[in-house]
């Protein structure tokens, strides 16, 4: 029955006072060489340690005071026996007359230390005597501290080989025997504490027991320090004896601590060589022992050991470490039916870490670990425990980090199976981890098969995997996800066109299932990937003879057509329009007139039917004009149809200034500044004149509606266009036409009520340009000569 906190303080203080009081008199007696009195006072002092009133924590404080005094006593004993005042054997006898057993035994141990040092008797005999005498104290706390004292004073006096106390041939076994006996007795006392007192105080007792654990563990430290304990002796004697005690004590607290202690204290190469024995103990432990932490510790230590030097690795193979650990874990999981899933997974994570460090080249081992996980997870519903899913993500990330290469992970058949057991949210998280790993390592995935496997793995991102799709996906997160899929598509590549086409088809097959939310993200990268392939094939024009090739630009354009079409379901008409125009240009470069025409048709249809926003129309029409301007594959008829449409739509834009600009842009459709380019001067002029008319109309409208001047700047823009074609040599654009336009603008700007500074600046810089051209001399100077500004 352990007392209350405040009372404890009081009792401790009293105990310490008692020790100090008696110590004082003891020292006085020692100073006057009065052995008898000294002993008497020391006994009284040590009697304070007989208390049952203190918790282990407080008892320790008392003990330390006594310990200090005992050290001084020991010194005195040594001097006395050296001087010859009394022989050590006599002293050893003398102290045994003390009335109470506890003080008697403390003094005996103290003298025993001197006895061993004197070498008047073999160390083993004294030690044997002491360790057995200590049996007299069966009270757990008192016994533990007494034996701890014995351990402390004896550790430098063991009959170890090479020590000054070395005995006969069996010397090491005697040393071992002593330590193990002390250990065994201490463990028994420690375990007994568990059963003392009422059940309601169990937690308190366990806490107090925890405080004492290092006293017991110290013995294992001592064992590990014994020089004479080599691998063989450890294997034959030390480990079996220690494990015997650990298993037989059937105490959860002790077993956990001691197994941990064994692993920490003895060298890793010993563990490797005794792996079977060590692992064999685990199933015999109490079912409530948290084996997984201990096992994980062991595997982590062995992993670090493996990483320490390459010479160590063959040992691992030789002892078949992997299969032993794997089996042990299997047995533990089997035995502990109530172990939660997170516990099992944590074990597998440790085993995987071990495997990746020790046997990174053995993909079969890695897959085996994943397979064991799958087995554990199968038959259950999808995981909901967030700790367990965290562990699985750790499990799946480990091979990625180790190999820096998703391709290796793709070779593990059990990898996707593990992923299948994740809930949708975590599955997506893992998919993003995989993509990030690929991006970080700039891995190139180069075959359609690998792409297929990869897209299977990340299918949670590619499409809605089940009916119950989470509607609460954060929009930002969704965008980020899909953008990472988009980036991924650029990492899928093979220089061989046939294989590349297969890759494109594989990707297409998957992303097409993504639905309207995902297509705007995934279609563009696929389209450009395909266009790059087309360009690649352009260079290889019909060089391949004989074989059936499916990778032709025509074929790819078909695929592109169907792919872009899917965007209409989103609907993303503006994006589709842009992509159609890209394809048209690519078809132009491949000399495929009907294909190019078809793409233009699709673009125009979208413009007509789907692009309603006026601003979007302006951009779209300029893109159409810009693309069309670059087309050289069209015959006259087709070209005429398309340019007619383009100019028509330009004139029908909502705002007059937009109309004007689009129409004069169309002028470039009739003049291509290349050798074989079209140079239809008349139609150019028609466009420019039309633009002028629109500009005029805009002026008038402004006068009427706002009473102000209209956009004079339009005239200046048109003037600049006239200058452009004038310089290019369009015979329809004469210097008098230009002169007329310049005068017109001057007039407009003068009659203006308000002046537009930017228009002024524009006109000024235009005139400057004309001046510059005039001063150039040569052909250009001549051309410009008639113009007066």
């Amino acid at each position: 029955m352990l007392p209350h906190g405040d009372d404890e303080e009081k009792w401790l203080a009293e105990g310490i006072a008692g020790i100090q009081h008696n110590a004082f008199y003891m020292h006085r007696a020692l100073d006057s060489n009065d052995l008898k009195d000294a002993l008497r006072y020391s006994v009284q002092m040590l009697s304070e340690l007989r208390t049952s009133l203190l918790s282990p924590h407080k008892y320790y404080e008392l003990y330390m005071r006594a310990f200090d005094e005992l050290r001084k006593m020991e010194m005195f004993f040594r001097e006395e026996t050296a001087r010859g005042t009394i022989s050590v054997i006599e002293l050893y006898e003398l102290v045994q007359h003390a009335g109470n057993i506890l003080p008697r035994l403390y003094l005996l141990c103290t003298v025993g230390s001197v006895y061993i040092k004197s070498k008047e008797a073999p160390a083993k005999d004294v030690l044997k005597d002491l360790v057995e005498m200590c049996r007299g104290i069966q009270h757990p706390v008192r016994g533990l501290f007494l034996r701890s004292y014995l351990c402390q004073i004896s550790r430098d006096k063991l009959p170890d080989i090479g020590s000054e106390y070395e005995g006969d041939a069996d010397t090491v076994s005697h040393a071992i025997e002593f330590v193990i006996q002390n250990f065994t007795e201490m463990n028994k006392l420690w375990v007994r504490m568990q059963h003392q007192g009422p059940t309601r105080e169990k937690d308190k007792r366990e806490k107090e027991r925890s405080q004492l654990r290092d006293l017991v563990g110290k013995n294992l430290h001592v064992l590990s320090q014994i020089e004479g304990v080599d691998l063989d002796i450890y294997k034959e004697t030390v480990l079996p004896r220690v494990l015997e005690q650990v298993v037989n004590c059937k105490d959860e607290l002790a077993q956990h601590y001691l197994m941990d202690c064994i692993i920490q204290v003895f060298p890793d190469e010993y563990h490797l060589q005794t792996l079977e024995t060590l692992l064999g103990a685990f199933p015999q432990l109490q079912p409530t022992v948290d084996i997984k932490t201990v096992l994980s510790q062991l595997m982590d230590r062995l992993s670090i050991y493996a990483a320490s030097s390459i010479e160590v690795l063959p040992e691992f193979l030789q002892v078949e470490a992997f299969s032993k650990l794997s089996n042990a874990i299997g047995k533990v999981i089997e035995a502990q039916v109530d172990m939660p899933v997170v516990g099992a997974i944590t074990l597998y994570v440790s085993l995987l870490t071990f495997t990746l460090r020790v046997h990174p080249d053995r993909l079969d081992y890695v897959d085996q670990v994943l397979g064991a996980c799958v087995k554990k997870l199968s038959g259950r519903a999808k995981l909901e425990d967030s700790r367990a899913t965290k562990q699985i993500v750790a499990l799946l990330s480990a091979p990625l980090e180790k190999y820096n290469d998703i391709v290796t992970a793709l070779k593990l058949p059990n990898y996707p199976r593990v992923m299948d057991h994740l809930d949708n949210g975590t599955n997506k998280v893992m998919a993003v981890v995989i993509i990030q790993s690929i991006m970080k390592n700039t891995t190139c995935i180069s075959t359609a098969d690998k792409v297929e496997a990869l897209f299977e793995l990340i299918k949670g991102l590619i499409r809605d995997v089940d009916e119950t799709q989470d509607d609460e996906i954060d929009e930002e997160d969704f965008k980020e996800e899909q953008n990472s899929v988009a980036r991924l598509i650029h990492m899928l590549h093979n220089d061989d066109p046939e294989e590349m086409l297969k890759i494109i088809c594989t990707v297409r097959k998957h992303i097409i299932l993504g639905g309207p939310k995902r297509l705007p993200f995934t279609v563009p990268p696929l389209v450009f990937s395909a266009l790059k392939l087309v360009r690649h094939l352009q260079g290889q024009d019909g060089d391949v003879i004989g074989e059936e090739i499916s990778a032709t630009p025509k074929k790819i354009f078909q695929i592109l057509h169907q792919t872009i079409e899917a965007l209409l379901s989103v609907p993303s008409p503006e994006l589709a329009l842009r992509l159609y125009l890209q394809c048209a240009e690519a078809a132009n470069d491949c000399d495929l007139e009907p294909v190019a025409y078809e793409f233009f048709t699709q673009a125009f249809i979208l413009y007509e039917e789907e692009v309603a926003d006026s601003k979007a129309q302006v951009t779209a029409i300029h893109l159409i004009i810009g693309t069309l301007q670059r087309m050289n594959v069209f015959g006259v008829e087709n070209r005429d149809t398309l340019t007619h449409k383009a100019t028509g739509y330009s004139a029908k834009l909502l705002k007059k200034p937009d109309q004007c600009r689009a129409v004069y842009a169309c002028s470039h459709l009739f003049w291509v500044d290349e050798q074989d380019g079209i140079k239809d001067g008349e139609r150019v002029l028609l466009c420019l004149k039309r633009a002028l008319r629109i500009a005029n109309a805009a002026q008038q409208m402004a006068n009427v509606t706002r009473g102000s001047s209209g956009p004079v700047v339009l005239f200046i823009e048109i003037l600049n266009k006239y200058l452009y074609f004038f310089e290019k040599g369009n015979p329809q654009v004469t210097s008098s036409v230009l002169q007329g336009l310049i005068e017109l603008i001057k007039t407009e700007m003068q009659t203006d009520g308000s002046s537009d500074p930017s228009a002024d600046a524009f006109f000024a810089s235009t005139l400057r340009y004309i001046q510059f051209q005039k001063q150039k001399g040569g052909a250009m100077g001549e051309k410009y000569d008639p113009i007066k500004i």
Partner: protein
Amino acid sequence: MVLVLAIGDLHIPHRAPDLPAKFKSMLVPGKIQHILCTGNLCIKEVHDYLKSLSPDLHITRGEYDEDVRYPENKTLSIGQFKLGLCHGHQIVPWGDLDSLAMLQRQLDIDILVTGHTHQFKAYKHEGGVIINPGSATGAYSSITYDVNPSFVLMDIDGLRVVVYVYELIDGEVKVDKIDFKKTATTQSAH
């Protein structure tokens, strides 16, 4: 010495996964005073990245940009120079220097920074200088074949601007530089 980064047509993630690693390691925050981005980033992540390099970021709209609110063109003064920024898909014929010169006259600027063709250009004409920093990621272009990743850094010092072009060719970064001077007496650069 004022450093101005001219960069654009990254087309992330439509046509390219990311900036080349060698460029990324060169573009360090805090060294560049202004960024002129021609457009076609295309996503917010790229915007944020450029913003992290310099707080004074100017972007004009490319036809694939996610954010449609970027302006069609922009003008600003840096030191003695007036600069203008426009993606370039609006100017037909695409990449035509005379047509771009017209825009330059219209905006009344010394330096026009423009993109769209994915091909580096530094062209001096009567009205000033036209600079195309190319595509920073080497993205596919219907206009230019074999695009090398490139960007431009302008060092504006008084009436002089030194244009450094960085191009990634066969895995190595090659630098070239061109000098332009502006005469103080006239309105525009000669």
